[in-house]
């Protein structure tokens, strides 16, 4: 009976769901700096620390650069470290993003995705993450508060796995997810720790075996160390899948590395992530009623990119519309994800027509009919080429 009670969903925002995950994972060190729309994650975590539900050292730093620095150092001593940020905070961390992956620090960070200055905008888009994608972190997008809770738990299993040892970002849309409430099953400390027990970090800073970390490396070695990151990233791919499957066995929920929704019989696909994926799930049935047989390819694991699943889902469709909420100014396709997909299409010799759409910049509203319009565009794309990126919803 007791067990059932705790498994009843409770209403949580994605920010709070992440804070509950950090609590249930018994993180040892939290270092963070407030930034909208992330702030309520660490506010909630600090509440858990203050009321004794979480026994963690909470470091109040003076910037995000310091927040990630402290989290990296904590992880290197073997502590389970957590931080969270958004937007300018992630941009300010950029230097340390590469330090975390280069030093193989298994830090987990949640990111409430938000646009970047200038001009100042506190609203959602995904410019922050897409500007950080080449920093060597495992990156996962989530589309519900429940998935956020579950993925943070999975993230520690992945990050701390001795064959991986890479930092992991769990990203979701600012406001649309960070500040809206959904039902979330919170599993509690005991079962979460059983699933993701703390592991001894193999190369930890240890007073009994003093070493210097981060030393300068000459050209004869630097490349090999970076290549080890390449290998670690490749190795993370099956690990993410495996951890997700085991999570499913333990808790009854699993997500896969990439999800194809309403793909049965679909001739066109829309590739989207986070809240857009959630919205599309509710609207695709309408699109089908209007004759657009369009499925959703939901990007969950972004780095490493699940190419095999991608090929499997796209090899029989006629068109693929990729929605980017960030701009790669001046690139061949100006949506960064679309650009990558063009590479994947060439590499795997895939036949679909690619449509690159940029939308939702600075949280430009996308109404239901706008998503239906995207479905129509994807549908049209079966027989028509769109050589240029479509800047959907912009006033020229």
């Amino acid at each position, binding site marked *: 009976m007791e067990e059932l009670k705790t498994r009843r969903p409770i209403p949580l925002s994605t920010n709070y769901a992440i804070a509950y995950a950090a609590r249930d994972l018994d993180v040892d060190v939290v270092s963070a700096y407030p930034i909208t729309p992330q702030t309520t994650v660490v506010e909630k975590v600090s509440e858990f*620390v203050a009321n004794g539900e979480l026994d963690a050292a909470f470091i*109040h730093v003076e910037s995000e650069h310091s927040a990630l620095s402290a989290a990296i150092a904590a992880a290197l001593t073997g502590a389970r470290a957590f931080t969270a940020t958004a937007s*300018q905070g992630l941009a300010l961390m950029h230097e340390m993003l590469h330090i975390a992956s280069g030093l193989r620090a298994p830090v987990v960070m949640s990111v409430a995705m938000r646009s970047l200055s200038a001009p100042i905008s506190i609203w959602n888009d995904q410019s922050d993450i897409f500007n950080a994608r080449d920093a060597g972190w495992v990156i996962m997008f989530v589309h519900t508060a429940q998935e956020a809770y579950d993925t943070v738990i999975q993230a520690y299993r992945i990050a701390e796995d001795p064959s991986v040892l890479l930092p992991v970002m769990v990203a979701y849309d600012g406001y649309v997810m960070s500040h809206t409430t959904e039902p979330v099953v919170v599993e509690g400390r005991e079962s979460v720790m059983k699933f993701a027990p703390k592991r001894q970090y193999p190369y930890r800073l240890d007073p009994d075996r003093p070493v210097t970390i981060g030393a300068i490396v000459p050209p004869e070695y630097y490349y090999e160390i970076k290549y080890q990151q390449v290998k670690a990233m490749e190795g993370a791919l099956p690990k993410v899948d495996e951890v997700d499957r085991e999570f499913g066995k333990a808790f009854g929920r699993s997500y896969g590395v990439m999800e194809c929704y309403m793909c049965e019989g679909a001739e066109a696909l829309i590739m989207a992530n986070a809240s857009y994926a959630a919205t599309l799930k509710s609207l695709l049935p309408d699109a089908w009623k209007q004759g657009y047989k369009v499925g959703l390819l939901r990007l969950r694991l972004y780095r490493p990119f699940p190419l095999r699943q991608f090929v499997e889902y796209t090899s029989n469709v006629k068109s693929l519309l990729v929605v980017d909420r960030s701009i790669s100014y001046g690139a061949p396709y100006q949506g960064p994800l679309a650009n990558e997909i063009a590479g994947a299409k060439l590499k795997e010799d895939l036949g679909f027509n690619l449509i690159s759409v940029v939308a939702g910049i600075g949280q430009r509203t996308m109404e239901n009919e706008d998503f239906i319009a995207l479905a129509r565009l994807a549908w049209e794309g079966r027989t028509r080429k769109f050589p240029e990126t479509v800047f959907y919803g912009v006033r020229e």
Partner: protein
Amino acid sequence: MARNWMDYKTDAWVQWCPACGNFGILTALQRALAELDLPNEKVSIVSGIGCSSRIPYYIKTSNVHTLHGRPIPVAQGIKLANPDQVVIVASGDGDLLGIGAGHFVAIGRRNIDIKVILHDNAVYGLTKGQAAPTLPLWFKTKALGQPNIQSAVNPLLLAFASGYTFIARAYAYHIDQLKEMIEAAIRHKGTSLIDVLQPCPTYNDIMTKEWYEKRIYYLDKEDPSWNPNIEKPEDVKKIPKIVEKMMEWEPRIPLGVFYRNTMVEPLDVRIEKIMPGYLQNPPARRSIDIGGRALTNPFVAFKDRIVTT
């Protein structure tokens, strides 16, 4: 015709909580600009990010709203290119003394003629009340889960140690006195700090109007002989007393001009020494072309370096 403070008002809706100390700072600043009769375009107000950093929207001058912690470098760029512009940084305590503290120190070393108005509410107002670097040790304002375990930085001493040549402390609800300090800072040539104690009625439930008004007093009222000026070598004898006053906090908090040193060369004078003509012909006013044609022709200027094969 002399300007009045209304000439510096914009019609933007002021987005601060009722009774926020920022209103007093805004009014005092507009009045000081009017008193000095400064042309609107000759003044630049540069802010970072925070409640206080919205102030450029409300003052009709040439302003920049920058990034969190970064108003000082931006202000320096404006001042270096336009040495006769009045450049004012107005920003929060978190912005200037936390994330941007490196810049706060760096400008002191240069004694660049920038006026820093520190909106000192001891919290991060905009992000809902976390402890700022000026919140005293063990204070537990209402948004904190636990008391503050970090000590407060003393902005006056930090400015002094960094080389600021004008250092004052004001109180946001005393608009007349604050206005006078801003005027004095603008008249001074060199890096200036006005630390403005700014009640934040929404998040700082300890350092309230009542709290401050029980403690504050003016240096020159208490001691009519108070003279913060360092104008000649023997004036350095005043420094121990000045530092002592800067360190005074509880139970009484002194306000007023603590330090005004006119013996240190400001940056523009230093630059003029290594770059004669800088002041007469500063970068912002230098022509780079005439009628679309560059002033220098690289093929002429580098004639003897051109390699022909």
